[in-house]
């Protein structure tokens, strides 16, 4: 019954999506009924929204009431599962997560249909058509290839439940955030395609899509950072990023999206890079589809991979369709997209943006290459050769450090041609101060090249931002006679985009600081300890006190108790554990960490003696500056909120 309702909703939504694809053609051919067809198109989107929402709610209802007559429910929940993890079962496996994707997609398209009911009358039908095409694809895949409403017979007494690793609070946020980011990139894609189809290639669609792209970018950033936090916090290996194919798939769309947010400003200001900007949007959207293909096809081994099936090849076909139609259309319209190609000078804001784009796209290319390397090598030389984290680290580190440098230069350098005066005014002091910081670090103890360069560049960016803001605040204070804090507020509200961008940059360099610190100066020790024995990892001392076992609702938990001291200061007991789930062959570790802004202490229980309870094997990690990754993430969030926040002044649009 429930299954029939859900499935019927999917089919009805699919029918409306097909209407959404056909209708714009009627719309453009009709001269007399345009208004009515336009209303019908919008109603079609509303209808899709209602039916998909109903379908998703039906599945959530089935999960919450543990209706095991539906196979998806039986596989992803149990009678013991707490209610909120039953709800997260919606994105716990392939079928449900596709439905979540479709749901978010249709929410976005309904928002677009609602917001632009009077604006962009010529574009919106086509924008909604692109949405309907994507929606029709997803609905067809869900309905015919991976149906979440598949009936289970006979009805099992209890379900199988989520993978225990997924039973974590982050499961509530990480997948929906990431999916919102992915799906959000459909909005700029749809606008770009609509502009190409109609040939109305003025700057309007750019202005409209900038904020949408920013929102998608924001969710993508947050989704990736929460994923990193989850990995660090829960997966118990002390790392936050493994360059796993699925992580790369989630990160890759972020790169062209970031590039777009920068190069779009060059088009707004100077009418340059039109073809390039469209390409970036197509690339970002295609990569979200590619990511789904990669993770759902099972062609690469990964801890995240879901079961393989026909879904992978369907996504590959759709990816080919997207790439061919978007870049084909771009080639067809390229005659209309001639911009001003001329760079006035190499030392200018434009060229900083250009370099930013080159670096981001290069990073994308190298990460893409590394991710599909096993497939390439298999195809070309017949041996599977993979490149692991060392490849990604060594290749992307110089690129990202260069990007940090550009983050200091770009926002301060003049458009067109930077004069000596401009350079001296904006960069002399930040250069001097950051060089002093660099030398100080060298004298202190940071001697290897990459981290030293990294920290110096980070200091450079921070000082350019502080110096520039301080100079502007002081000028207002002097000229307008405002108090310092008030002057800052006026500045931010008058130059919302600029200061929002600077705050985001500040967040990014803090994240980079955490990455550089933890990559370069982590200490790792592993030892088998007897009760009462201590292990010294500067500046910490860890004493093994006891081991104990306890019965939990879903598993059996073995916990080691370790007393931890920092330079003699008692930090209390830390208890890393191993969790034995009946459904899992090997135990799942539960690492614990003690966080400070300076460095994290991270304990992993990797073994114990079952017979005597006197022995435990412990892995101790000291990871400097990791916390700054999360701090930086918060700062980036703040910056994006400033950017999106509607301010009084209307001149922004």
């Amino acid at each position, binding site marked *: 019954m429930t299954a029939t309702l859900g499935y019927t909703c999917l089919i009805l939504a699919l029918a409306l999506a097909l209407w959404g694809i056909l209708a714009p053609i009627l719309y453009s051919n009709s001269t007399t009924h345009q208004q009515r067809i336009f209303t019908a198109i919008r109603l079609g989107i509303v209808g899709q929204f209602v039916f998909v929402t109903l379908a998703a709610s039906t599945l959530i209802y089935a999960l919450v009431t543990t209706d095991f007559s539906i196979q998806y429910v039986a596989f992803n929940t149990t009678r013991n599962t707490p209610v909120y993890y039953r709800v997260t079962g919606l994105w716990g496996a392939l079928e449900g997560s596709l439905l979540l994707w479709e749901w978010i997609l249709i929410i976005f398209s309904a928002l677009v249909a609602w917001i632009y009911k009077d604006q962009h009358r010529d574009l919106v039908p086509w924008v909604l058509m692109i949405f309907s095409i994507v929606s029709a694809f997803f609905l067809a895949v869900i309905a015919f290839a991976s149906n979440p409403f598949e009936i289970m017979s006979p009805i099992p007494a209890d379900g199988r439940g989520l993978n225990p690793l997924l039973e974590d609070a982050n499961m509530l946020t990480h997948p929906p955030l990431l999916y919102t980011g992915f799906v959000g990139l459909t909005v700029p894609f749809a606008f770009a395609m609509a502009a190409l189809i109609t040939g109305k290639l003025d700057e309007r669609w750019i202005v409209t899509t900038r904020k949408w792209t920013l929102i998608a970018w924001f969710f993508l950033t947050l989704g990736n950072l929460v994923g990193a936090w989850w990995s660090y916090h829960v997966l118990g290996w002390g790392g936050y990023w493994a360059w796993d194919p699925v992580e790369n798939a989630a990160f890759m769309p972020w790169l062209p999206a970031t590039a777009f947010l920068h190069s779009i400003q060059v088009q707004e200001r100077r009418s340059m890079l039109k073809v390039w900007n469209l390409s970036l949007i197509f690339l970002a959207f295609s990569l979200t589809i590619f990511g789904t293909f990669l993770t759902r096809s099972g062609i690469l081994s990964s801890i995240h991979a879901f079961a393989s099936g026909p879904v992978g090849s369907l996504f590959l076909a759709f990816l080919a369709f997207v790439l061919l139609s978007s870049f084909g259309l771009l080639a067809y319209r390229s005659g209309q997209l001639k911009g001003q190609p*001329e760079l006035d000078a190499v030392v200018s804001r434009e060229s900083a943006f250009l370099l930013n784009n*080159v670096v981001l796209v*290069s990073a994308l*290319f*190298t990460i893409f*290459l*590394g991710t599909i*390397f*096993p497939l390439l090598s298999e195809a070309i030389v017949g*041996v*599977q*050769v*993979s*490149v*692991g*984290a*060392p*490849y*990604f680290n*060594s*290749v992307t580190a*110089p*690129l990202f450090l260069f990007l940090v440098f550009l983050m200091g230069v770009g926002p301060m350098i003049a458009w067109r041609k930077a004069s000596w005066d401009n350079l001296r005014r904006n960069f002399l002091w930040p250069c001097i101060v950051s060089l002093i910081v660099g030398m100080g670090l060298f004298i202190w103890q940071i001697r290897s090249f990459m981290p030293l360069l990294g920290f110096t560049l980070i200091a450079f960016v921070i000082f350019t931002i502080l110096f520039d803001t301080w100079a502007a605040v002081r000028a207002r204070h002097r000229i307008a006679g405002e108090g310092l804090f008030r002057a800052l507020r006026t500045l931010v509200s008058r130059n919302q985009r600029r200061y929002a961008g600077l705050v985001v940059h500040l967040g990014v360099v803090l994240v980079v600081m955490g990455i550089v610190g933890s990559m370069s100066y982590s200490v790792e020790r*592993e030892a*088998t300890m007897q009760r009462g024995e201590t292990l010294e990892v500067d500046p910490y001392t860890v004493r093994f006190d*006891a*081991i*104990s*076992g*306890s*019965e939990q609702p879903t598993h*059996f938990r*073995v916990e080691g*108790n370790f007393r931890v001291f920092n330079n003699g200061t008692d930090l209390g007991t830390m208890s890393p554990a191993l969790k*034995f*789930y*009946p*459904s*899992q*062959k*090997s*135990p799942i570790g539960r690492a614990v960490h003690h966080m400070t802004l300076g460095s994290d202490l991270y304990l992993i229980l*990797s*073994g114990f003696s*079952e*017979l005597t*309870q006197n022995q435990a*094997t412990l*892995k101790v990690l000291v990871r400097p500056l990791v916390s700054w990754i999360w701090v930086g993430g918060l700062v980036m969030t703040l910056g994006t909120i400033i950017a999106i926040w509607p301010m009084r002044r209307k001149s922004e649009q």
Partner: protein
Amino acid sequence: MNRRRRFIIGAIIILAALSYLIYGGVKEAMVYFITPTELKAQEAIPGDKFYRVGGMVLAGSLKKNLQSRTFQFQLTDGVQTIPVYYQGVPPDLFREGAGAVIEGRVRQDGVFNATTIMAKHSEEYSPKKEGHTELRSFLPGKEQGAR
């Protein structure tokens, strides 16, 4: 023309730098997936390449020293067998007769020096009804443990 030439020179410089980065990165990080038979057939110079070898831990071959946490065993694919040395803490699933994937280099004496051992999770595993009973009998409750 001048502009075009400058553009081409710029592109070449960027591509060259990128290729150099990628080449260096790949050379440093390549891992070959092979079987013990393929490894034997390689006759590679020891220590030269980083391999990931998949196989089974030969029953009766495991010698472990818990004090120094060293493990010696034979890894087999049913045709060929290679000697393996490992120091560290192997994963919980690691045992004789079970599948394992090892990563590392071949030492001068022909022994494979594994830096990582990954146990293979077999798909057809079905859990025991009672869960980990053997653990419960060995481990006391919390109160006792704290004593």
